[in-house]
Each structure stands twice: as structure tokens, then as C-alpha cells.
């Protein structure tokens, strides 16, 4: 059912996005040094490195949780669960798996596609993807925390909790209104 992509996506350590940000950051750092002097430069560097360092244990924990969940939770089982629940419970389960399942777009979209094949409706699939995007823990731990710190991220996630369900309900309303035709085959 699910396309064979059980191996997790190997993220490259460096890519064009990172190179672009690195180039902009270097220019910014040079102009800070030139404009405000060494002391201010070191103050900024110090505070950013501190934030980065404080978050590293969480990033490592996030990576390990992600790799263990990938190994322990068969994707076929997840697809079966989501595909066979309907109603509001179906949306809740889809949101829960969006939160739990680790990985990047290469692993998530095939799972979402499998939900459709297993009989899930568009609302559940929408809820799953929005949940993975907005409240998924791997993304929050690995990416958001080092940039924004714990308080901000926790606060943002609590406020985002209802959004995946809301998106799923909206999707069902739109489908019911006849603006989109549901197809079971992707």
C-alpha cells in the first residue's frame, strides 16, 4: 500500500538554503563588527551560542525519539488506524499521529497518501498534514527550539493545538459543499 520509502530521508549537512543564509549572516556579522566593534560582535555571538548550546540536548533527544518511533511504529498500522476511523474521532486520531510521526516531507506525504488509499477522507488527511506541520514534536524540538527558545515554542504550540482539527472540519465543509470532489485513488 505505502510506497517503499522506509529509509528515512538523509538530510544533507549543507544545502543551498543554508549557504544563502550563511552568506547573508556573514555579511551581517562583518558589518556588525565594522560598525559597532569587537565587543558588541562578541556579545551577539555569545548570546546566540548560549541559546544554541542550551537547546542541543533537546535537539539530540528529538532526533533519537524520531528514529525510535520510526522503527517501532509501523506505518502500515498508522494508515490502517486513520483510514478506518471516521467522524470527529477520525480527525482526533489523524491529529495525534501528525503529532507523533517523525520525519520530513519525503516520509510524511507517502503516509498521508496511504491514508487515502486505506479509506480516510480528505478532512482526516488535511488534519494529519496540518498537525504534522504545526504541532509535530520533531520539528519543534529539532528546528524551532534552537531558534526561538522553550517559552516561545511551548506557547505557540499550545495556541496551535486546535488548528489541525479546525482545518479538517473546514476541509469537510468544503468537500460537502461540492467545491472539491473526493477521489479515493491518489
Amino acid at each position: 500500500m505505502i510506497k517503499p520509502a522506509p529509509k528515512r530521508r538523509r538530510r544533507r549537512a549543507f544545502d543551498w538554503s543554508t549557504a544563502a543564509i550563511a552568506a547573508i549572516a556573514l555579511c551581517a556579522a562583518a558589518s556588525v563588527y565594522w560598525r559597532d566593534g569587537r565587543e558588541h560582535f562578541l556579545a551577539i555571538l555569545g548570546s546566540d551560542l548560549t541559546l544554541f548550546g542550551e537547546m542541543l540536548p533537546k535537539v539530540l533527544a528529538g532526533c533519537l525519539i524520531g528514529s525510535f518511533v520510526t522503527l517501532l511504529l509501523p506505518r502500515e498500522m498508522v494508515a490502517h488506524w486513520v483510514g478506518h476511523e471516521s467522524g470527529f474521532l477520525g480527525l482526533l486520531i489523524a491529529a495525534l499521529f501528525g503529532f507523533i510521526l517523525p520525519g520530513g516531507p519525503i516520509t510524511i506525504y507517502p503516509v498521508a497518501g496511504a491514508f487515502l488509499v486505506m479509506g480516510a477522507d480528505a478532512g482526516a488527511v488535511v488534519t494529519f498534514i496540518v498537525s504534522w506541520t504545526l504541532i509535530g514534536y520533531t520539528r519543534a524540538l529539532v528546528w524551532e527550539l534552537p531558534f526561538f527558545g522553550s517559552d516561545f515554542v511551548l506557547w505557540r504550540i499550545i495556541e496551535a493545538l486546535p488548528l489541525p482539527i479546525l482545518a479538517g472540519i473546514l476541509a469537510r465543509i468544503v468537500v460537502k459543499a461540492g467545491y472539491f470532489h473526493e477521489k479515493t485513488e491518489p
Partner: protein
Amino acid sequence: MILAINILLWVVVAGLALLAAMHGRILLNEGLREGSIEFIRLLPRIGVGVVGSGFIADVLPNALVADWLGPDSGMTGVLIATIGGALTPGGPVVGFSIGAAALKSGAGAPQVIAYSTAWALYAVHRLVTWEVPMMPAHIVWLRAAVSLPLPFIAAAAAMLAGRP
């Protein structure tokens, strides 16, 4: 607070490692290895972004950022941030670096939340590179369409709740 989160996370790691070990030594080793490799590969990207965003924030014109995206910019600022998020190209390093730089140089938290929510949900570049090739097209457009109001709702919730 930070310590509590760390302890909770590592308890989860330990629990999962134990569960994996019960399935056999190979699964435990594979989990530890995959997770560590992922971590090491991510480090340079996150490091560049986090350290870079501090310097970028310092050279951004603070008055201008505060004017357009500051806490007093209200829903206009949220709209600008949402459009900015939708148009931001590139991977997570780009989106998070810009969001963090904006926050550090005077943008309001609800506006930054709107930016990162819009970027995460319907950045055009990501929809086209990732979602469209891998999902049925009608689901992609349905998801993008119902996601349109979400950055505004997230920002409104952030305004009502206030910062911790």
C-alpha cells in the same frame, strides 16, 4: 521549566530505547545510530541559522521592522507577515532564521507566529517542490485553501492570550 522539559524528553528517549531493546539489540543499535547521525547532520544547518539570525537581526533597521511588524502593527502586520511567509523560498533554515531575526529586531510575537505558520503551511515554493509531486493535486489545493485563515487565527489567539 527548561530542566523539566529536558528530563521529560530524556525519559521518553529512555522508554523508547527500552522498548526497542525488548525487540532486540539490533533495533536498539539502529535507533541510536540513525538518531545520532541525523543529529550530527543537522548541527551545521541549525548552527548557521541560529548564530546567523542574531547578526541579521542586529543589522535590520529596527524602527522599520517595528513599524511594519511590531506589536502595534496589529492585523496589518499579521497580513504582511502571512504574505511574507507564503513567499519565503527555501528550507527550514531560511524560514526559521528570518522569523527569529524579525523577533529579535522588534517584530511582535503574534506577527512572527503568523509568519512561521504561513510559511509552514503554504509557502508556495514548498508546496510545489514537495507536496504537489507526492500527493493527489486536489488534496494539496484543498489543504492549502483551508489553511489560508490559520495564520490569522494563530496570531489572534496569540494576541488574546498575551505572551507568557
